[in-house]
C-alpha cells in the first residue's frame, strides 16, 4: 500500500487541529474542569490569585475587544495552533541543526 507523503500527513493533522478549533471548541463544555471543580468544592482555592497576564489580549482563549464568542475562540485557537506548531517544530529543527558538525 502506498503511503501518503509526510507533507500530506502533516497537512491532514493540521487540518484536523483546525477543524477541532473551528467546529468543536466554541461548543466546549462550559463546566469547570476536574481540578477547578474539586478545588472549589473542597475549598482549596481560597488563596488563588488572578493570573499575572490576565489582562493580556488573548487571556482565557478570548480576544479582547471581540465580543463574539465564536470569533474570539477561533482567533485564539488558530493563534495557539500556529504558535505551538512553530515552537514545537522550531525547537527540534534547532536541536537537529546544532547537532551536525559545522
Amino acid at each position, binding site marked *: 500500500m502506498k*503511503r*501518503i507523503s*509526510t507533507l500530506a*500527513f*502533516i497537512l*491532514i*493533522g*493540521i487540518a*484536523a*487541529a483546525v477543524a*477541532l*478549533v473551528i467546529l468543536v*471548541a466554541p461548543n*466546549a*463544555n*462550559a*463546566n*469547570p*474542569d*476536574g*481540578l*477547578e*471543580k*474539586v*478545588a472549589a468544592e*473542597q*475549598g*482549596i*482555592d*481560597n*488563596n*488563588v*490569585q488572578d*493570573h*499575572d*497576564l*490576565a489582562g*493580556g489580549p*488573548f*487571556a*482565557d482563549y478570548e480576544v479582547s475587544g471581540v465580543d463574539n464568542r465564536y470569533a474570539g*475562540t477561533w482567533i*485564539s485557537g488558530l493563534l*495557539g*495552533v*500556529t*504558535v*505551538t*506548531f*512553530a*515552537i*514545537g*517544530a*522550531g*525547537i*527540534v529543527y534547532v*536541536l*537537529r541543526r*546544532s*547537532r551536525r558538525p559545522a
Partner: protein
Amino acid sequence: MLAMHIPDGFIDGPTSLIAGLIAIAGVAWCVRKTSATLSDRDIPVVGLAAAFIFAAQMLNFPVANGTSGHLLGGVLAAVLVGPWAGALAVTVVLVVQALLFADGGLSALGLNVINMALAGAFVGYGLFLVLRKVLGGRTWSVTPAAGTAAFLVPVIAALLFTVEYAIGGNDAVSVGTVATAMIGVHALIGIGEGVISGLAVGAVMSMRPDLVYGARRLEARPQPALRGVAA
C-alpha cells in the same frame, strides 16, 4: 471553560519553586535526548503533536456532576514522537497557554509541566510499553496500548497534584479529602483521554505507521526466521 491548569496560589511558593527547578532539569534532559532519538523527518511531527494537543485541550468534554475534562496529551505525544520529544511538545503547549492565554499560573508552571508533560510522557510511555508487550508486541498492539495507557494518565496527574498539595497546599483541607476527590474525577476524565488518544494514534497508524515512535521495531506478525530461532 477551556483547559484550566493549576493557577497561582493553590500551592505555596517554595514548593512551586522546587517544582520549577525539577521541571527545568527534566525538560533540559528531554532537550538533550530529543535530537538523538529523532530524525529531520520528525521535525514537523513534533510541531503537529504540540498543535494537535493545544487544539484538543480547548475541547472540554462533560464528565459527571457539572464537571468537565480535557485531554492532557502526554501519552499521545510520547507514542507519536517518543517520551523526550513528547514531553517537550506538551511543555510547549503549557508554556504557550500560560504566557499567551493566561491559563495555568506562571509560578505554577513547573507543577503543571511535571504533572502533565513529564509524568504524562514518561510514566505514560512506560505504561504504554508494558501494555504493548502484554498485547503481543505487534503493530496492531500500538493503538489499544496507547488508549489504555492514556486512560490511566489523568489519575497519575491527579495523584501528583495531591502530593504537591500535601507538601505545599495553601489550605487546611485534608490530603485524603483532596486525593479522593481528585482521583475520582480524573478516573472519569481518563475515559476521554483514552478515547481521544486511541483515535488519534489509530489515525496516524492507519496513515503513516512508520512515523509512530511507539511502533518502531515492531513486526505486523511473527517473522518465520525469528520464530525458528525462538523455538
